[in-house]
């Protein structure tokens, strides 16, 4: 049961799974991360740091609830500031997970197999971080359910012609479908965990979650049909989600927001930032758990190419935005573009250009794409750039609308920052708990990959 790769030229950078793996060896290696390996020191340190950030998040929320949104820098004319910037940033990050698990599955990209479970988990946690933000931003978060349509004593209903109502449906559907897709893929692996676990409590726990999965061919037929269909519906869904998020802006009339290129460029930007986050997380994680033979340099090479491609699309989006403003000739639009480049926040805009347009040019070189240190640093730069992009769109546009009398500036307070970095803590805490308790690579899909590779010879 040796795995060979005769179609691919030799060399470490070219394989998606190092040779020599058997059905049992992949299953054992992946589940041992959870069941047998002593918790690595890196996990304890990482989880501890994440827990500190998470505590900061909880404190920030407590302060917010006690004193209200006045603790933030938000004020007229900038009512949407850090909460919405960071909300869009998190939602975007989630998109890479669905792209990897659904779209690359439909395209039969076999390299996705070893990273799709992890990327899907990342999606779920990013959506959780994102979804909390608009609720916290409501001012009266305890009545957030007013946005849901339900018969009430006011006799009122949500306004379904509003992009904000669409957003609620898009995000909650996305969160639900991502969770279902993730869980359906997990069921067979949970059965594997049940059969491998030695401790009776673990056996019982994984057994209950696996729901009695026994690998019957009849079950596999239905499971695989559903998996394919979920991938097929998740594909338009993921495109729709960031499109709807962009509608929050594009449907309005504010200069800097109202432009038709926004939906596609939001989607490309989402994939761009999501892949950057996958790289940020996988570089340390594969090292921590010694998974270099399953998450190989080849994966980073491919992800580097995707980053470059989507980054160039994002750059095209910026160019189109400027071109449309100047070609359209609306004085407000033209003024907004000049204000971005030369106004009070110009340093942020130029920093964004450096992060998202210039830094990615290094990805043309294979030497860079296969150097994990450089990839790691670039991924951090890209995610900073994507945050700045949303800052440019949300905040700068709001400070500078039609009437000079209503112009104003925004500056963030310490509670803005603590909630933002705190949400990173929530994300990382969930992620660390995930890799500690569930198989972070899909065992059955890796075994299927071995079977396919074998039968090709």
């Amino acid at each position, binding site marked *: *049961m040796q795995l060979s790769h005769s179609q691919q030229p030799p060399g470490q950078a070219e394989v998606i799974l190092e040779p020599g793996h*058997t059905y049992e060896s992949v*299953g054992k290696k992946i589940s041992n991360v959870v069941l047998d390996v002593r918790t690595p020191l890196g996990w304890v340190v990482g989880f501890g740091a994440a827990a500190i950030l998470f505590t900061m998040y909880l404190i920030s929320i407590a302060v917010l609830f006690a004193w209200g949104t006045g603790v933030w820098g938000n004020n007229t004319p900038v009512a949407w500031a850090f909460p919405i910037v960071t909300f869009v940033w998190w939602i975007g990050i989630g998109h890479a997970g669905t792209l990897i698990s659904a779209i690359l599955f439909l395209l039969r990209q076999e390299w996705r197999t070893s990273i799709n479970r992890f990327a899907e988990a990342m999606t779920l946690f990013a959506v959780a971080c994102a979804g909390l933000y608009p609720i916290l931003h409501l001012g009266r978060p305890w009545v957030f359910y007013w946005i849901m349509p339900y018969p009430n004593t006011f006799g009122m209903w949500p306004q379904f012609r509003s992009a904000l109502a669409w957003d609620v449906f898009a995000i909650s559907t996305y969160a639900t479908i991502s969770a279902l897709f993730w869980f359906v893929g997990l069921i067979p692996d949970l059965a594997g965990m049940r059969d491998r676990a030695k401790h009776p409590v673990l056996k019982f726990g994984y057994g209950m979650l696996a729901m009695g999965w026994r690998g019957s*061919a009849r079950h596999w037929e*239905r499971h695989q049909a559903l998996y394919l*269909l979920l991938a097929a519906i998740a594909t338009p869904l993921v495109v*729709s989600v960031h499109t709807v998020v962009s509608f929050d802006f594009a449907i309005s009339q504010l200069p800097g927001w109202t432009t038709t290129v926004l939906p596609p460029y939001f989607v490309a930007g989402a994939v761009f930032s999501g892949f950057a986050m996958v790289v940020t997380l996988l570089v340390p994680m594969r090292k921590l758990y010694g998974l270099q033979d399953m998450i190989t340099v080849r994966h980073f090479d491919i992800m580097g190419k995707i980053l470059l491609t989507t980054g160039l699309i994002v750059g095209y989006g910026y160019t189109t935005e400027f071109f449309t403003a100047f070609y359209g000739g609306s004085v407000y639009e033209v003024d907004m573009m000049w204000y971005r480049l030369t106004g009070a926040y110009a340093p942020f805009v130029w920093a964004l250009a450096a992060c998202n347009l210039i830094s990615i040019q290094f990805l043309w070189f294979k030497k860079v794409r296969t150097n994990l240190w450089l990839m790691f640093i670039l991924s951090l730069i890209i995610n900073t750039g994507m945050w700045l992009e949303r800052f440019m769109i949300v905040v700068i546009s709001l400070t500078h609308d039609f009437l000079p009398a209503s112009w104003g500036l925004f500056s963030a307070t310490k509670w803005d920052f603590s909630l933002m970095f705190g949400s990173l803590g929530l994300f990382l805490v969930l992620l660390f708990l995930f890799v500690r308790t569930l198989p972070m690579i899909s065992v*059955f899909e890796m075994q299927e990959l071995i079977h396919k590779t074998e039968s090709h010879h």
Partner: protein
Amino acid sequence: MSAAETSGPEYYGLMAEFDNPDDLLAKTKKAYNAGYRHMDAYAPFPVHGLGEALGIKRNGVPYIVLLGAVLGGLAGYGLQYYTSVLAYPLNIGGRPLNSWPAFMVITFEMAVLGAGILGVVGMLALNGLPKPYHPVFRVPRFELASRDKFFLCIMESDPQFDMEKTRAFLEDLAPQGIYEVEQDATTKVYD
């Protein structure tokens, strides 16, 4: 049930173990050609063609997903139509109350949501899950069905099933082992 009903355990079926998926597939085809119908094959990962070899023709999941999409979409549009036209009409500059282009986003999202939820529930229901107990789990080696071994089980409910003859048939398939799958005294499972 066969004649030996008086005492001794009741059986769910006879199970044979194989070492690799291709072997399991070939032997399943043989069993089907020998006339066995009530049987199941077990593998740690989906094996292409195994369902066909067992004689499975219909798969209800796609229809359920479609039904979910249609129901979800109708519910989504219906909700918006009801609230915007009937329950809470707002005349804004004489624009049509049934402004369907603006309703498309939520209609689409609800269609996807309906398809996903009904699909998962339907897949589990058709598979008879959750079912934490099943007689096949009584075979100690069956633990490996989620790891790297492959099993074929001919059920006692098959009209052709006969403990002696079926065992002889399975032995001819050269498996790595043959196991009797006993029923639990109280919890009987037949499918």
